[in-house]
């Protein structure tokens, strides 16, 4: 085969591969949204699920997912931010930095079910909390911390050195420079990073099976005393998230309208995750424009 012909063939093959990936992605999302769209209505989104009858909704599951997200981000964002700032601003090429990076890499690639097992041992059993939102939130923090650290490090490293120098020249110390100059400047990147990390939290399921649990107690949405066991805000109650619900209804197969519930839940989950993804891009760009006035 002549070099020219080989080049043509290769180009066609590359185009075919790229198209194939787009088709796979498009048909998956299309399939879920088409089937799920038919079963989504107000009742489905707000009513509690049924155990053996048809007609259940996913209201508590949606609430649990968002609440768990908030709880875990309360831990993930500050710790991830500080850790990322350390790596970007203070860390030198020392043995210690090397070990920190190795550990972050290790945490990042741990199978989430292993983190779930760890959570079962430490947060569920040793603390005596049982299956609870708090155990789930801490397990999710372990999973998402590496991601938040990396996003922060990238965002902070993207801040030009001239800004730091200007700040130091004006007499600010390192920490003041970081708080007043570097972090505000890295803000758009930090916001995008936090939202993308949140999207991950939303879809995670394996680690939650053994930490937040696979059941949701009857919730009383008028009970706002967080120590009451039927209060939706009680962080020490078990909570089944949307992603876990999809897995559970499919594997248990007890409800007669399984397909409707599973299709609808998958569509809601995809829509929310897509929403996170798109808003991360949009918000990041918008804040950036706002700050740089371009």
């Amino acid at each position, binding site marked *: 085969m002549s070099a020219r012909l080989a080049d043509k063939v290769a180009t066609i093959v590359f185009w075919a591969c790229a198209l194939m990936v787009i088709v796979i992605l498009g048909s*998956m999302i299309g399939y879920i949204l088409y089937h799920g769209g038919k079963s989504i209505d107000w009742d489905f989104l707000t009513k509690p699920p049924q155990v053996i009858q048809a007609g259940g909704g996913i209201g508590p599951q949606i609430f649990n997912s968002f609440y768990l997200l908030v709880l875990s981000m309360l831990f993930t964002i500050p710790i991830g931010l500080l850790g990322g700032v350390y790596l970007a601003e203070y860390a030198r090429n020392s043995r210690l930095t090397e070990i920190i990076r190795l550990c972050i890499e290790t945490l990042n690639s741990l199978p989430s079910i292993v983190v779930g097992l760890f959570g079962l041992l430490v947060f569920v059993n040793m603390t005596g909390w049982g299956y609870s939102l708090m155990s789930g939130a801490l397990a999710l923090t372990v999973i998402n911390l590496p991601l938040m650290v990396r996003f922060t490090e990238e965002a902070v490293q993207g801040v030009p050195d001239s800004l730091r120098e200007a700040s130091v020249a004006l007499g600010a110390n390192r920490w003041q420079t970081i708080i007043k100059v570097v972090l505000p400047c890295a803000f758009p990147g930090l916001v995008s990073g936090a939202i993308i990390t949140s999207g991950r939290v939303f879809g995670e399921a394996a680690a939650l099976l053994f930490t937040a649990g696979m059941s949701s107690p009857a919730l009383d949405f008028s009970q706002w005393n967080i120590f009451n066991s039927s209060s939706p805000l009680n962080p020490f109650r078990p909570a089944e998230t949307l992603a876990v619900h999809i897995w559970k209804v499919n594997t248990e197969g007890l409800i007669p309208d399984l397909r409707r519930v599973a299709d609808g839940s998958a569509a809601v989950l995809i829509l929310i995750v897509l929403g996170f993804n798109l808003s991360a891009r949009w918000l990041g760009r918008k804040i950036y424009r706002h700050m740089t006035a371009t």
Partner: protein
Amino acid sequence: MKINSDMLGKVLTMGAALLAIVSTIVIIIFISTKGLSTFINTGISVKEFLFSTTWFPDRAVEDGGPQVGVLAFLLGSIIVSLLAVLVSAPLSIACAVFIQEIAPFWGQRLLQPAIEILAGIPSVVYGYIGLSLLAPFIRNNIGGLGFSVLAGFLVLSVMILPTIVSVSTDTLRALPQEWKEASYALGSTRWQAIRLVLLPAARSGLVTGIVLGLARAFGEALAVQMVIGNTRKIPSSILDPVITLTSAITMDMGNTPMGSLWNNALWTMGLLLLLISCCFILIVRFVARRGGITS
């Protein structure tokens, strides 16, 4: 006061970074302690655990005693994730080359965001699509029950695609432009430049992406559990059902009493997953240090 705030900042950030070390060590210690109890308390040998396929975790002593050989689970995990990488790696690297070299405008405008969206789709959704679309398709058109090795590795290969594509794209982007230009100046076609200059130069990055993809496939639990049928038998064809380490842990952990041999064996399987994922990290670091073509 100024000095204090500076010190405080340094201590705070360093504390957060050290937390990564602490949590890694704590995870390893706790999972190991629990996982090793199978060997220490029950006197089952490591060799028997790893290389035997006899799995009777709750057999009475009169019938020959309990046995926990996890070879079938381990082989299931290896087969499914290796096949997934075999499908996914060429496709992913082709996509990365497409994004970076063939159609940068289309690639970066359309394909890269698409890949990022693919990365964000939750694994249970992949599992559900596999369960409701792929498995029935296989049952009706190819044969078998549908819940099979085939369904498992196809689902996984789509799941790990974004991982391999994004690492490969980053690697290709980081290559110096001059190398490609030099290759064109010598009269090579674009394909020759890609095959003879760019891909070899990016080799270590591509391998890193593939190993990370493999690690992800190996550790994935729920999506796999939903489509592989979970039958504890070494499969003889890709249409046979299979079981993996992760799917066995997922299914049995909640139903077995803490401290029983069955439960301990599941923890040991968790430890095995942890060790294998640590191995993947070491491989990635080794490959990264060796590098590709360096200046």
